[in-house]
């Protein structure tokens, strides 16, 4: 593989004590490499070693065919830019000034900006859509704006690699998406290689070309998002014991309520999901059905319900399933029906609803929660 930046048998650690050994990862230009893994697993250590901030214990980092330790400070600065978690001290500086510090490797002895430098700073600010607050003091802007400006700063350094340590932490979802969007644009428009660590698995899965999983002081896996993001593996990587992770949706479900189910939820087509979650929140154990295994409701029902009456994907529920559901309804003693659209494929659910009505077991979620609360008192 022809990587632009790669590590060869790299061992990283602090004060000569190895933390993670024999790391072999790399990324080409125009690609995004993302490090994921639990807190304290060593993602930042790897990143800091790759940018020469930390001394390697063994191995090399190769940048564009050269060992990174052989490059001069200035050469490295022209090839590699960073956005780290360390807070930048920018006393009495405007946002524009901060972005302009990216031009440092290109300016002369006294660091005066040329007209071309100024133009590049303006360009970088436009790229991250920060024109509106370019003249504001840097220490008066929001976290989201700050991250964007730091990215602009990295952009106007005109690097070939950008290394980012958890660039989306502390940002709200809108700013997370905007930041990654700019990064994506950088990668495609300027053919930059990106190495970053992310905590948001769903985003990592969507933006990365390659993913490195760091856990238990080792690189556990390294591959494409498709190879990495599998439910069981993510559970294991993060040691998730309570709750579950759905890698297709990138969503997390809490631990299901314990005990025998006391309500049967008739769902389908996504209508059941909010009710499942509400029941889980109220610590009410429930059963769900009848759901085809390609239904939107299925992953969540599977994660949260004590019991699910399901049928294989694209198959109509058979008699056995209906009987099983009815028997469950009797056992539960109450029924919530989440859907009022009944078509050819969910006639079985309609039948269950009628069954519940005939035995006057049908209830509304709110009634159920009130009842539970009263009982608790």
């Amino acid at each position: 593989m022809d990587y632009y930046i790669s590590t060869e048998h790299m061992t990283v650690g602090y004060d000569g004590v190895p933390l993670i050994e024999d790391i072999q990862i790399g990324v080409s230009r125009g690609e995004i490499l993302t490090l994921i893994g639990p807190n304290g697993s060593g993602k930042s250590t790897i990143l800091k070693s790759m940018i020469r901030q930390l001394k390697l214990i063994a191995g090399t980092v190769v940048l564009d065919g050269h060992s990174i330790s052989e490059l001069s400070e200035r050469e490295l600065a022209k090839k590699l830019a960073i956005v780290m978690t360390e807070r930048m001290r920018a006393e009495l500086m405007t946002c524009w000034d901060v972005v302009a510090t990216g031009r440092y490797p290109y300016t002369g002895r006294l660091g005066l900006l040329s007209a071309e430098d100024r133009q590049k700073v303006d360009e970088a600010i436009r790229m991250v859509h920060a024109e509106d607050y370019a003249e504001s003091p840097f220490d008066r802007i929001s976290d989201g704006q700050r991250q964007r400006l730091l990215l602009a700063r990295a952009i106007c350094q005109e690097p070939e690699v950008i290394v980012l340590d958890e660039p989306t932490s502390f940002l709200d979802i809108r700013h997370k998406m905007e930041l990654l969007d700019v990064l994506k644009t950088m990668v495609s428009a300027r053919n930059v290689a990106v190495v970053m660590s992310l905590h948001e698995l769903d985003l990592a899965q969507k933006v990365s070309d390659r993913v490195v999983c760091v856990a238990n002081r080792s690189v556990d896996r390294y591959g494409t998002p498709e190879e990495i993001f599998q439910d069981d593996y993510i559970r294991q990587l993060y040691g998730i014991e309570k709750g579950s992770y759905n890698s297709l949706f990138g969503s997390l479900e809490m631990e299901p309520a314990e005990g025998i189910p006391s309500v049967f939820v008739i769902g389908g087509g996504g209508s059941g999901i909010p009710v499942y979650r509400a029941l889980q929140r109220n610590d009410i154990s429930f059963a769900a059905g009848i759901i085809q295994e390609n239904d939107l409701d299925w992953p969540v029902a599977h994660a949260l319900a004590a019991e699910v009456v399901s049928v294989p994907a694209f198959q109509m529920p058979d008699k056995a399933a209906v009987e099983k559901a009815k028997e469950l309804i009797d056992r539960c003693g109450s029924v919530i029906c989440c859907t009022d659209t009944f078509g050819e494929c969910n006639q079985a659910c309609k039948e269950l609803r009628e069954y519940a009505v005939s035995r006057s077991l049908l209830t509304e979620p709110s009634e159920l929660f009130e009842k539970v609360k009263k009982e608790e008192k």
Partner: protein
Amino acid sequence: MEKRGHIRLWIGFAGLFAALILLVIWNINAGSVHLPVSEIIEILFSRTGDNAAIVWNIRLPRIISALMLGGALALSGFLLQTFFANPIAGPFILGISSGAKLILSLTLIGFLSRGVAVSSFALIVAAFLGAILSMGFVLAISLKAKQMSLLIIGGVMIGYICSAITDFVVTFADDANIINLHHWSQGSFSGMSWSNVGVMVIVVIPVLICTFMLSKPISAYQLGEVYAQNMGVNIRLFRIALIILSSLLSACVTAFAGPISFVGVAVPHLIRSIFKTAKPIIMIPACFLGGAVFCLFCDLIARTAVSPAELSISSVTAVFGAPVVIMVMLRRQKDHI
């Protein structure tokens, strides 16, 4: 924005220069012998007149010393503030001046008791060693203490220890020069000779130029070490350069004028508020000028307030400098809430 910044710059520098010239003239003018401006100009250009000796032998060397050493102090403070990323760092507060004073006293007493005269350069070397020694202790504290105030407290304590040892040594030394030494250890610009001034200029001006040439890496370092390194600064070399430069400056001041308090903290802060920037390329010359103005002003008061007696320069600089330090700390506090 850009334009307004430039105007502020010009006004700031013009103001500093005007204040400098005004204070120089005022300093020549004021004293036990009062000299009108017309006479001053005549003396300056012709070197003749009844009072030429007062101007040329006493007042002018003193003025130039205050100017040079004041600038050096302020610059040293700016460098230390940059180095420790701490707005109230300064050579006096961090105990660096006191360290220089200690080694200097030891050297002076050692030489004087053997009846050997000490040259100005030897004094600077001794003060430099003392400054570096204190700096070493402060650095050791800074490795352990991440909090801004802890570093300052550590520095103040080092200062006290050094002063205590100095007092101890001075008490037990037996020489007529002790009185002189005692006077000097309080801080004063009095009794400067032209040869002193020459040595000062030889030390301070090159350091000023070197510092100015470092303004680019200093600007990177201000952002934080991590970013500075990525921008291409060799952090290790840079830190060593900063330590040497700031120690040289405070050593030079201590060797000639003794420890002078608060100039190093107050002036860079005042300059930052006047110029509304922390850019080293502006801060370095402006701090130097500002320090010169500040010390000329304080020396004027020290000389004239209770004349014919003289105040120690530190008492005057403390009166004007310490409130600034309190202001800085309160403002930081406010910013953090």
